[in-house]
Structure formats: C-alpha cells, structure tokens
C-alpha cells in the first residue's frame, strides 16, 4: 500500500495552472524529494497534501484514506515550514507538546514523548527555551520534533533548510534524513536545491510548470535524466543546440560525435555534464578559459570555443594549469552525452 497516492491533481490560481494532472505514488517509509524552480508548483502540491490548499480536481490518499476533502487537522500529517512557524509564546517543550495536546495525549505519556522527541533532535537541554532564544537551526530542529511528535502517517517538509546558513543546512539535511530513516516515516521534501534533494531522497521528482515530469532514484535522475528540462536543471550541464547530420550523427566539431535516434536535419539539444568534459593537449576543439570558479574539490571552468561556450570541471589541485585566458583543447566523453529533441521537453 502506498504511503501517499496522488491521482490527477489540478489546481489553478486565476489564469495560472499550479498543478496539471499530477499523479504520484509514494511508498510507505519512502522519502520523496520534489525538486523544481520557483513557481513550478511543488509547494502547492505539498500544501494540497497537508490540506492547506484544496485541489480543483483529483484525489489525495494518505495510506488507505481518501483525504481530499478533509481539513488539515484530521489528515494525520506533520509539517515543517520554511519559516519554522514555531509558536512564539511557547517553550520548545510546549511547542513539541502542542500536537500531542491537540490529539488528546495524557499528561505523563505526553511528557515522555516530548522528552523523547527533544532527545531525538538533540535539544533536550533547550526544553524550556522560547523560540527567540534558539538559533535558526535549533528552531528548525524543534519544528521537526513537533512535526514528528504525534507519529503522523506522513511528514511534509517545505523548504526546511532555506532560511539557514550553509553549514547548518548541510548538518541538518543529514540529520533530517537520519531521523526519517530511524522513524521510518513516509516523507515529502520540497526544495529548489538539487544538492539537498539528491542527498536526502530515496527518489527525486522533478517538477516544471505544474507537471511532475520525471521521478527516479537520485543517481538515475542526475546521470541519465529522461527529460530535457531535468538535464538543464540538474548538474550544471551545457546545453548545445545542434542538428543531426546526414549520417544520423550529432557532432560538436571534433569534441564528440555520437549516433542520434533522429532523422537527418532534426534540431536537437546535446546535454553535457561538466565532469564529462576532457581537457587535452591534442585533439578535440580549441578553446580558451574565460572563467575559473573554485568549488572545493573541483574547479568549474567556462571555456569559450568557436562553436560556443562549455563548462568543464577539473580537479582543484590542477587549478594552476588553467588560469583565465589559458588555451585548451576540449573533448567530451561520448557515453555521457545525452541528446534531446530541441522542440521537446
């Protein structure tokens, strides 16, 4: 039985379609990340599941219950919001206890659960602090404990890390995943940050203009996206507009040439990940480094060629070899090139 089943959801805001015929099954205990640019409908979808927005049509099932017409309070979900939404006049412990109180948990049982939840998020020492006495990361931990406290069927996370600094974001991201695995709860995690989505999820769903265009394991979605939008959105790919030649091949100078499943003359887009670009002393096509940006273990180079610009990743320790203006020769690992129809998605 799926943890969450969405069937044919549609939602409009005036003339804007926020959700278009969206269907999705999320397995029990699975964490699905919804990824997409701002305005793609991912938060609307989450709010529909929570009951905070009502779809114009379609069915929402949580477990075996059709909850489409039910108010949020009876849906048995826990939700973590981008802005924490902690109750400012309640302590951390009171915040965590609120869903238990709402659902009629008795005093002793409630106290034990509050302690258990605060220990789970490592904040047992901050039980009596008010939200304004906690850091952003601590507040979001309390919000997570609060969302999990009453053992809801589904955990909904709406950009939970967006308001945090980079270090806290990484730490808390891993913590959320650890806790979700520990409690084994079905979860939907909305984010626009691809690194976050790929790191925490069992599966990633990519959304564009109200449609769920692709769902798959993080590695599959990242390495072999089936949709042109996903290829462009994930992985910092260079998207080269090319034409299938008379031999039914797609080529970018001498950098690569691969067979294409389209007739000659078809306009296509070749998607190339930066890590599949090779810089050689001979072969390929000639180019010049126009920008080098440090990314920790790698350097991202923007290389200008006569045929267009391409991004390439090289090891950070080779940075000295590629200063801005350096002449290079570029080729591409052919197995990494993906070709999409220029007019398709």
């Amino acid at each position, binding site marked *: 039985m799926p943890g969450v089943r969405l069937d044919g959801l549609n939602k409009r805001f005036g003339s804007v379609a926020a959700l278009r015929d969206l269907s999705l099954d999320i397995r029990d205990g699975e964490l699905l990340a919804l990824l997409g640019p701002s305005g793609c409908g991912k938060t609307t979808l989450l709010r529909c599941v929570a009951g905070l927005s009502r779809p114009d049509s379609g069915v929402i099932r949580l477990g075996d219950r059709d909850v489409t017409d039910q108010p*949020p309070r*009876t849906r048995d979900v826990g939700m973590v919001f981008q802005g924490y*939404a902690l*109750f400012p006049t309640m302590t951390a412990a009171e915040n965590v206890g609120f869903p238990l109180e*709402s659902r009629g948990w008795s005093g002793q049982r409630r106290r034990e659960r509050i302690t258990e939840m605060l220990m789970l998020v490592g904040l047992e020492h901050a039980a009596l602090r008010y939200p304004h006495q906690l850091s952003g990361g601590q507040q979001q931990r309390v919000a997570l404990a609060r*969302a999990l406290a009453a053992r809801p069927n589904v955990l*909904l996370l709406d950009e939970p890390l967006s308001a945090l600094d980079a270090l806290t974001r990484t730490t808390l991201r891993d913590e959320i995943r650890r806790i979700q695995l520990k409690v084994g709860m079905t979860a939907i995690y909305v984010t626009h940050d691809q690194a976050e989505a790929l790191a925490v999820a069992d599966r990633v769903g990519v959304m564009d203009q109200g449609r769920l265009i692709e769902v798959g394991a993080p590695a599959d979605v990242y390495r072999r996206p089936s949709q042109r939008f996903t290829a462009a959105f994930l992985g910092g790919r260079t998207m080269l507009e090319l034409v299938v030649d008379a031999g039914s091949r797609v080529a970018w100078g001498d950098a690569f040439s691969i067979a294409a499943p389209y007739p000659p003359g078809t306009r296509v887009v070749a998607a190339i990940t930066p890590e599949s670009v090779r810089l050689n002393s001979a072969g390929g096509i000639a180019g010049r480094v126009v920008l080098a940006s440090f990314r920790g273990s790698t350097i991202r180079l923007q290389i200008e060629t006569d045929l267009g610009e391409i991004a390439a990743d090289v090891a950070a320790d080779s940075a000295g070899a590629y200063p801005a203006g350096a002449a290079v020769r570029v080729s591409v690992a052919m197995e990494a090139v993906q070709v999409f129809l220029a007019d398709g998605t």
Partner: protein
Amino acid sequence: MLDGPLWLRIGVLASVALYGVLPLIATALYSLATVWRRKPLPDGITLAWWTSTLQDPGFLWALGRSLGISVLAVILVNLLILPPLYWSHVANRRIRPVLEACALIPFVLPGVVMAAGINRFVALWTLTSRLEATPGLLLMAIVATSFPVYLWAVDGSMRAANVLALWEAASTQGAGSWRILRRVVVPSIGTGLAAGSLLMFASAMGELALARIITGSSFETLTLWQLRKLHGTDADPNGVAVASLLSLFVLFAFSFAIAIRNRGRSVQMAPAAGKG
C-alpha cells in the same frame, strides 16, 4: 534619532515634554486651587475640591457607570470583533473589506448624528424599541462607534505575528480553529489585544455625544457629570478638574498594568507590513 548638538536635542525634548505635561500640571493645580486669578500660580492650595468631589454620590455613581460601561465595552468588543478579524486572517479574506468599511463609518458621520440615528433606528420596531434610551443601547452604540481603534491595534499585531502561518502550523498538528485561537493566536497577539482594549476603554470612558443623546441624564456617565458641573446651576469646575485627573489616573493604571504584563515588548498600534 534626533541629530544635532546636545543643547538642541535637550531643548527639543524638553519642549515636547512641556507641551504634553503643561495641561496636566495646570489641571492638577486647578484641582488644588482655592482661587486662581491671572497669575502663573493659584492664589492658594486646598484639598477641599478633592474631598468634596470624592464624597459626592453623583460623581461616584457617574464614575461607576463609566467604568462599568467601559469594562463591558472592552469585553463586548473582544467577543464581537476578535473572532471575525481572526477568521479574516486565516480563512476568509472577504470579511476584511467589510470590517474596514464599517470601521470608517464613525469617522465619516458625526457622533451626534450617529447617536440620534441609533436611537431612532431601535425605535422603529416593537421588539427593539424597549432598548431606546437604555444603558444597553448606549453600550452597543459605544462598541459600534469605537471598535475601529480596537480593530486596527489587533489587526496590526495579527499581521506582525503572522497569524496565518501560526494557524497553518497548528492546524497540521491536529488543532481546530478555536483551539488555535485560544492557545496560539491570543497569546501571540497579547500586546495588540491589550493595546486595543486600552484604546477601547479610553474611548468608552471619554464618550460624550452618544451618552448625551441616547441616555441623557437618566444614566449619567462621568462625561455627562463633568458637563453638568461645567455649565449647570451647581457648576463646580474645580470638581471637573478632579474628575479629569481621576479618569486619567484610571487610564494610566490600566496602561501601567499592560506595560508590566508585556515587559519589554513594543505595542503594535498600527497595521504593520507582513513578514516576507
């Protein structure tokens, strides 16, 4: 922040303080003056006006009536305005223009016109005509005409507290709307509720036009008593000064209690921009 040399800053602040405090000092001196003729200070000082006013049953009854009706007005405005205002924030934004339009009426129509209108309106039907010229009608009229001050103070604090976000968070945790109002929203907007209630209380204490036309001398409030003591055959202007100071003291005590309750938190009196 005021810029400029120290003497200028002190001078400006002292001028503003003097402007605010001078009428109060003058009223206090007048309430203690034996006689005060064309001099900077009274001819002599006496507590006679204080003792005679505080022993005047007419004054005590008027003060009691005003306090009673003001407290009831505060209770009533909280019961009548808070729920729809809350609902307009969390569920139905269409209530909001209606509330705002109603809040403008007292500023468009003069108090005497509204008072006469309210009195005549209830007289139109047998069922409501029993309310005509009663303290109950006065109470309802005060609430109807003074609620905007409460509305704006509470509305501002609801926006500042981002009540919608709190409601959404609480409702996904199994709480119904009334529980959320009682357990989450009211504590979060305590300062705004207190400010709104204080403004409502002050407005009700100082209401004159409605009291004069709706109940008149049959239910003499503090303001009506003061009016009679200014112009009546038993005029007692020094007693009016005493009554004004006592009224001010009551309001000050109310404000002080609120300030103590909301230690360190600023009072949000005007609508504020929502959090992004």
